[in-house]
């Protein structure tokens, strides 16, 4: 965009005479002009407002891909402020969004052909659900942004449509009391926004439900995997040292290439255990028996340990076998338990109960397994 300098409604010290009593904090809306997804601006009673593209381009897709893998995920933000889709007027709906770019994009791409406002509030670059849980997508921030963008002057329609999953952080009757805007909780998914608006802001029961389909679960796994690189490196080093020590104790000649090859070969069952816990369990979640996530991990871990031990040509004594059946399920149970943070249906009380039972067992199994593994190199 190269419209040059213009006065923006959001960043000056304008004393709003609106009913909103919230403080007008400064926010960095001006930079939005540089964004690839801003296609122009429209003139309004409160000054120019940026219009956004409703079709994602390669930059958005690349950005999403990187964020999924944890690259620059925390800085993947949208400048908070008011935006326009299409040609909204004073009676057009206002959708409220988090300023995590992934959240914003999932909303943006559903807005083709619609005329409405989007109020992006500052959730510190965190998605709706997590921000609502932490209170950053909260009542006060909504009130602050309504005031800061001078929405009451712009609109005759005093209604805000929130994503339903912001409800843990937004008290609808408080928003109304303090700035006169009625809060309507929209559908859970951005994909249903158009249908929701069409029938006069009504969500049917399906729109009100979280879905947690295969794709929803699998897209969450890369971030889990990236967190495992470091522990994996340490474990590989541990196996290398065991191999080295066993060669030295046996009085053999040290051949680095052999030691490295042997260490990576020893790593295989545990490496795959990481994949089982972090990818297979989430993917197969509804098909694995049991309710507790750590239990589901344990089941698949035992299956993998059994398969590995049964591989033709594998030489494994009692100690190796014990180490497989102890360490692998410990890894998979732990990683599966960690997936509770990504699910849409686990409660805090449930997680605490599950951890009280699972964690001591996991630690014990891992400890005994490591002892067995270590001994197996020297016996």
């Amino acid at each position, binding site marked *: 965009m190269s419209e040059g300098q213009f006065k923006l409604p959001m960043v000056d010290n304008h004393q709003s005479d609106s009913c909103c009593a919230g403080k007008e904090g400064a926010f960095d809306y001006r930079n939005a002009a540089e964004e690839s997804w801003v296609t122009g601006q429209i003139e309004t009673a409160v000054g120019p407002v940026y219009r956004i593209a409703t079709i994602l381009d390669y930059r958005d897709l690349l950005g*999403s891909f990187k964020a999924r893998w*944890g690259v620059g995920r*925390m800085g993947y933000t949208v400048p908070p402020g008011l935006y326009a889709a299409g040609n909204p007027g004073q009676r057009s709906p206002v*959708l409220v*969004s988090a300023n995590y770019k992934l*959240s914003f994009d*999932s909303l943006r791409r559903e807005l083709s052909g619609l005329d409405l406002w989007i109020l992006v509030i500052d959730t510190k670059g965190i*998605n*709706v*659900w*997590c921000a*609502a*849980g*932490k209170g950053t997508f909260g009542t006060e921030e909504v009130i602050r942004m309504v005031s800061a963008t001078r929405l009451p002057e712009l609109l005759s329609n005093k209604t805000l449509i929130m*994503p*339903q999953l912001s*409800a*843990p952080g937004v*008290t*609808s*009757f408080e928003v109304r009391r303090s700035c006169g805007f009625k809060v309507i*909780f*929209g*559908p*859970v*998914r*951005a994909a249903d*926004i158009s249908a929701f608006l069409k029938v006069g802001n009504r969500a049917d*029961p399906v729109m*009100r*439900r*979280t879905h*947690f389909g295969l794709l*929803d679960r699998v*897209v*969450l796994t890369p*971030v889990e995997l*990236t*967190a495992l690189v470091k522990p994996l490196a340490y474990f590989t080093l541990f196996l290398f040292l065991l191999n080295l020590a066993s060669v030295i104790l046996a009085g053999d000649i040290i051949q680095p290439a052999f030691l490295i090859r042997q260490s990576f070969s020893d790593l295989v069952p545990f490496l795959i255990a990481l994949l089982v816990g972090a990818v297979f369990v989430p993917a197969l*979640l*509804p098909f694995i028996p049991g*309710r*507790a*996530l750590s239990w589901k991990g344990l089941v698949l871990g035992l299956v993998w340990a059994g398969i590995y031990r049964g591989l033709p040509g594998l030489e494994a004594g009692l100690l190796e076998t014990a180490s497989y059946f102890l360490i692998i399920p410990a890894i998979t149970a732990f990683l599966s338990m*960690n*997936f*509770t*943070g*990504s*699910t*849409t*249906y*686990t*409660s*805090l*009380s*449930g*997680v605490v109960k*599950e*951890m009280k039972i699972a964690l001591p067992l996991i630690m014990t199994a891992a400890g005994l397994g490591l002892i067995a593994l270590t001994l197996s190199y020297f016996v």
Partner: protein
Amino acid sequence: MKFRYLKNVVTLKLDQGKCNGCGICTEVCPQQVFTLEGKVSSIADRDACLECGACARNCAPGAISVRAGVGCAYAVLMDMYNIKSRCCGDDCGCSLDGIQC
């Protein structure tokens, strides 16, 4: 398909005497825990509750109470060892990215 978590663990409580029948709880709950029977809300599927706290926060007469929190093992673990929770902040998978607008 509805996923089921552990039975009989959640802290959700509803005082039907205080309910004004507004029905906001049936709207904000992502798990369809509540139903409106006549002019009073009731808990239809208690074990489906994920303790997000949306209902209690939006219940004007204060008929609902729940110990709200994030059902995330990583966060609980960090809490247990008194490490400042970075859940949803830095590198934990706590995301739900893209499931919501």
